[in-house]
């Protein structure tokens, strides 16, 4: 565990220490301060694809360019996270050996076990809250997640709803899960999400169970309901984001889907609609985390920048998921009112009341994970 500092951070701190040593009188006060406030030259930020503002012509990210302009910190933005467990599998090797993964910020979803696991394992740095005055702009509902109650290690990037998307040209509105799983007209034209946290939550709600507290009986009810629909040939696939293409082409008529994808799909085809199921839908949050070896101070400075409502609005105008920053909607109301009024991006309080979070303990249950994989047939 000797290698947890990046070489860059080590040199910087060594230099700061050396400089302070040469002026003995300042040693206690300066050394700490100088080391804490030093910024890295480059911020390495790993995120999911298509999850930040982009200028279609130059292919540059305006909000990141603005960050560089204000702070002098260059950003190396990498879109290499496609799947939570896949990405965790990639980074757990080096992190478990105390090695840096060469990144200052990564983004992982709280309906997978990984944000909680990274904290439990001690593989993430604490946020530098002294650099985060804009933390006050974090929306209420996201301030105290069970796995990081004081937001010491994580901050939301975006949230999203899991609900039902349907093609209004090919079917009547599909507003309940039971309709999705049993309507004969949808036979073989339905997809569910392969991720346990998404699909299991929505099914639990339809069963009248609390997705925030899934016990064995509730889990079995979830599995049986899906198994029944699967053997009846109702379900065409278990998908990741790839349901979007099938829905757009008309190969599937309805699907469990993510709100942000449907905003995008709806822009191209007005028939594609999103519904929070009558029994309730799920909400999840993608969280920024600082993996060990990352520069916590520089990363926190970036997070503070992102939590400025004006910057969050820049990103939001492109991304279409749910913004965790208070005030971004007010900024957008002036610049792009259509986005500000879209309830899939800024849900009404009535919608929010129908959204639930998945039981974190269920995500850590190895037995559930194994049975879930078998259910998917893979």
């Amino acid at each position, binding site marked *: 565990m000797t290698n947890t500092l990046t070489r860059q951070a080590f040199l910087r701190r060594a230099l700061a220490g050396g400089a302070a040593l040469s002026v003995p009188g300042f040693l206690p006060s300066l050394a700490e301060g100088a080391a804490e406030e030093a910024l890295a030259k480059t911020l390495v930020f790993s995120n999911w694809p298509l999850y930040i503002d982009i200028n279609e012509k130059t292919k540059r990210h305006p909000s990141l360019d603005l960050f560089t302009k204000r702070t002098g910190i260059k950003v190396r933005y990498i879109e290499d996270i496609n799947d939570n467990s896949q990405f965790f599998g990639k980074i*757990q090797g080096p992190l478990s050996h105390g090695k840096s993964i060469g990144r200052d910020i990564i983004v992982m979803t709280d309906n997978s076990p990984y944000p909680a696991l990274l904290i439990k394992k001690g593989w993430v740095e604490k946020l530098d809250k002294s650099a985060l005055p804009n933390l006050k702009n974090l929306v209420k509902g996201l301030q105290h997640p069970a796995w990081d109650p004081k937001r010491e290690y994580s901050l939301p990037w975006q949230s999203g709803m899991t609900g039902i998307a349907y093609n209004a040209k090919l079917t009547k509105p599909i507003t309940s899960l039971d309709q999705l799983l049993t309507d004969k007209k949808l036979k*073989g034209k339905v997809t569910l999400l392969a991720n346990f946290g998404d699909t299991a939550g929505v099914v639990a709600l339809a069963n009248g169970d609390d997705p925030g507290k899934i016990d064995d009986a509730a889990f079995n009810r979830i599995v049986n309901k899906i198994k029944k629909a699967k*053997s009846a040939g109702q379900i065409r696939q278990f998908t990741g984001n790839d349901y979007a293409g099938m829905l757009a082409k*008309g190969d599937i008529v309805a699907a469990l889907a993510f709100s942000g994808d449907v905003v995008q799909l709806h822009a191209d085809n007005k028939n594609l609609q999103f519904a929070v199921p009558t029994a309730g839908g799920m909400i999840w949050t993608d969280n920024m985390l600082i993996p060990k070896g990352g520069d916590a101070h520089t990363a926190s400075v970036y997070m503070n920048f992102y939590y400025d409502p004006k910057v969050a609005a820049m990103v939001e105008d492109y991304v279409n998921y749910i913004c965790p920053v208070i005030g971004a909607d007010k900024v957008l109301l002036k610049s792009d009112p259509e986005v500000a009024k879209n309830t899939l991006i800024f849900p009404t309080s009535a919608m929010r009341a129908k959204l639930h979070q998945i039981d974190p303990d269920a995500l850590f249950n190895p037995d559930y994970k194994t049975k879930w*994989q078998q259910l*998917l047939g*893979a």
Partner: protein
Amino acid sequence: MGFLHRHRRLTPYLLLGPGLAWLALFFVAPLGFLGHQSLETQDPIELTYTFKWAWHNYSDAITTYHTQLLRSFEYAGIATLIALLISYPLSYWIAFRGGRWKNVLLLFIVGPFFVTYLIRTLAWETILADQGFVADRLRDLHLLGADGRLLATSTAVVAGITYNFLPFMALPLYVSLEQIDQRLIEAAQDLYASRVRAFLRVTLPLSLPGIFAGTLLTFIPAAGDFINAQLLGTPNQAMIGNVIQSKFLELTDYPAAAALSFILMAIILVLIGIYARALGTERLTG
């Protein structure tokens, strides 16, 4: 030179050297690694692996995924049979009646291979699409029910496999048919064999090596295929390749994936052994 003269017997081994080194490095070593992996256990949440001689991975894999295993061999078997029934007359005709067009006709068979496998299958996904031209016309003709579909069915998967592997069947068949001495068939007919009898007693047995090679080249990759079931099927059509693919690449459950790979390999080897026995190996290797 002196060394080689003195150790003549070493020459064949030296000539074999590069090939053996290649096999050791790129076949035996990865296979050993895979074997080692198949006996590890995985922590399903933390995704860490420990070596424990976990032979139960094999029995677990069979109990959990026997449906997909059986389905793979069923689909591969049907696809191989259809490919044989389509390819034999095709290759026969090109070999015996193709004349100066032989090469052009062969090019037609190989033609699709100029496009990559994945793209060809994606093309079928588009052709068979529920809202596509073909499905719509078939519905107009009432050959397909109003809710009927072509895509995401077992038929689509088997057809996809057949299509994708057809050239592997047709080309070896063509080669073995082309080599048949026509005079042998004429001789059979001179001896009052009917055309059918001449075919069954002369042409067919002589083309057995082609049938053997073609069926193996089709059946083996088809049994392990996952692209066709992935793109043209549903979870009810999932083959063992899909399970291995998702275990390796999506769920990072390497031990189960490795165990399944070995099981697949073992079953294929046994099936080929039986098949070779049934056809008679001496005749096949000429």
